[in-house]
Every structure is written in structure tokens, then in C-alpha cells.
């Protein structure tokens, strides 16, 4: 009866590590970051995680109470939207080859 079963895609795309596409790596400077999460909001992958407040040292005590953004380099393609949208310009785009040196 079922010679032609409906093809159902079941494998999550997370197996595809798109971080390998990256030319420039966004690096968050946590001492400047105000944890507004605007980078997280605009990442098209999404490759920015929300991590617990204590994980990074913050600019001041009030900011230190907020959960922080953390870039997942397994998936970040390096588009640079996060760096462009950051209101305090605390994300630097670093050439990957420089980091390898």
C-alpha cells in the first residue's frame, strides 16, 4: 500500500555547523556590554545564547544582575549584524585568520 511514503524531514539542522562559513568573528567586550540583548534580538541564525548573569564580569552591579549574551561560534556565520546594531559598539569583528596566528 505504502510504496511511496511521504518524505518527512526529521534531522535537525543543528548538525550543520555553519560557523565554518565565518570570515570575521564577532567578539563581545563584556566590560563594555550593557546586556540590552539587541544583538540576540537581531541574529538571523540565531547564534547568540542567553547565559546566566554571573558567567561574565559586567560593567557595573546593576548590569551584572542581567543575563548576558554569548555567541555560539558553532553556528555564527559572521554576518556582523550584532556588531552593527550594538548601541554601545562593544562587539568587535576580528579577522579569523588573525585569530589562528
Amino acid at each position, binding site marked *: 500500500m505504502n510504496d511511496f511514503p511521504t518524505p518527512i524531514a526529521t*534531522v535537525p*539542522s543543528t548538525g550543520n555547523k555553519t560557523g565554518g562559513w565565518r570570515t570575521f568573528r564577532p567578539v563581545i567586550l563584556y566590560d563594555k556590554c550593557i546586556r540590552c540583548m539587541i544583538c540576540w534580538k537581531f541574529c538571523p*541564525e540565531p*547564534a547568540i545564547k*542567553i547565559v546566566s548573569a554571573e558567567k561574565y564580569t559586567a560593567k557595573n552591579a546593576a548590569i551584572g544582575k542581567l543575563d548576558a549574551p554569548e555567541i555560539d561560534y558553532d553556528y555564527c556565520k559572521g554576518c556582523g549584524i550584532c*556588531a552593527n546594531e550594538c548601541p554601545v559598539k562593544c562587539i568587535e569583528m576580528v579577522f579569523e585568520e588573525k585569530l589562528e596566528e
Partner: protein
Amino acid sequence: MKNLTIPEEEYMLPGHTACLGCGATLAMRYALKALGKNTIITIPACCWAVIPGVYPSRALEVPLLYTAFEVTGAAVSGIREALSAKGIEDVNVVGFAGDGGTADIGIQSLSGAVERGEDIFYIMYDNEAYMNTGIQRSSSTPKGAWTTTTQVGKIRDWKKEKKKNMVEIMAAHGIPYTATASIAFPEDFIKKLEKGKKIKGPKFYQVFSTCPTGWLVSPNKSVEVARLAVESKIFPLYEVENGVYNITYMPKKEVKVKDYFALQGRFRHLTEDEIREIQNDVDEAWRILVEKEKWSKSLMKVQ
């Protein structure tokens, strides 16, 4: 403590294959944040048909049914009817298609679905050309743009026709709810979808979605370009609810069309005079929109 202005839940997975900075993926990410788990999406041929990856890869946490290029409107109608036949009413049935699949080839089935009053969402992610097949012009490509079928060169054959107004076409159907939205204004888009969830009948959204690849825009400027489209009034944010127009974002700054064009290679060839002509078109369209808002509100006696 979290400092978020949009829902935290994600229903779109990373590892997808969209280009760097693709606006269409942001449109999907935000749409699913608003619509949630109880959603079935159907997608015709378009970039989003390849973004989830090669079979058996999936990038969404909700069911997705692929359909043919011209039938998104029929597909959502069928899914809706099938669910209703099973007694299932609490599912958002969503058609998610590009501008080519919506304003050109899919317009007949969309018109049919809307006319029949199907209880569905239709989201047109507007990247202003047929991107998946290599940047061919659509009726939603704006006047002045270069595409591979409106080439510039010596004959300066860039697109001379105006962008088709899909919201007006939908409003003319007497649709209960239709709106524009932008990837640069996710809170506004999500609010409009939340509103749509409370409305029975067809809901249509036209979401401005930057395509860095097709617009010759640097990927990091993807959201900025979309913001400038709204600020320059070339793509205003508004909704039409049962015939009543409502502008949902009043541009704050004096941004000119020229400033919006400046970040994009697809408008690079335009002369000062040509840009001025487009600016005049935009000013006129905005003036009419503001009048329509006033007029429709007074006509329908809305405060």
C-alpha cells in the same frame, strides 16, 4: 533577570543554509516567536524552501509542508479544512512565501483563500525579487532597482515600474486584518501577529526582509537598511483592520530615500534627477496614506 523585548522561545534552529545576514530568516524567527508551537507552516518554492537544508534536514520546530510555487493560498486552505474536519481549531495555519510567490504567481490562490474567508495567516516575506533563482525582478521590486532581468548597462534598463501594493489589494478583498512589518521592528511585527491570533478569518502580513545578496548590501547592514526603509517612508509600517488604516510607526528622523539607497548596490546607477522623482513618488504615497488613516477613522467613527 532577562532584558528582552521579544519572546525568548525559539522555534527556528541554527545550522540553516541562508546567506549571511538574510532578512527572510529573521522574518521567520520572529513570526514563530509570536505564533508559537501550535502552528503549521506551508512554504512554496522560494529561498525558504532551501534554507532548512537538504532532505532530511529541518530547521523549524513546527511542522512544515512544502508546496508548489503558485498554490500557497490553496495549501493553507486545505490544511485549515483538514484540521477543521478533524475538529482541531486551535492551530495557526500559516502560508509563508516570497514576494514572487505572493504578488506574482501565487496571487490567484491567495485571492481565492482570502475571498473565501479562510481562517489563516499569510506571511509574504518581501525581499523584492526572485532571489532563490538569481535575483530576477518581481512586481514587488521597487522602481529604480537593478535585478538580473532589469539590468543597467548602457541601455539603463533598470526597473521603471512601481512596486505593486499588496496591502491595498488585500484590503480591497475586505480582509479583516492586513499589515506591513519589518525585520528592523520585531516588536511591531510580533504585536501585529498577536492581534491576528485573536481575529478569525484571513490575516495578511507583508514583511520587509532585506536580501544582502540580491540588493548588493553588506550583510552587517541588513537590519539597518530595513530600518532606513521605514524611516525614509519608502516602506511605511501600518495596518488595515476592517477597512480602518492605522500607521503603527511614525518616522522620527528626516531620512531621505537617497540615504536609504546609499547603502545598496542595486540603486547605485540612479542619477540625482531619477532619485528626486522616486522621492516625489514616496512623498505622495505617504501623504495619501496619512489621509487614508484620517479619512477611514472618521468614516468608521474610530477614535
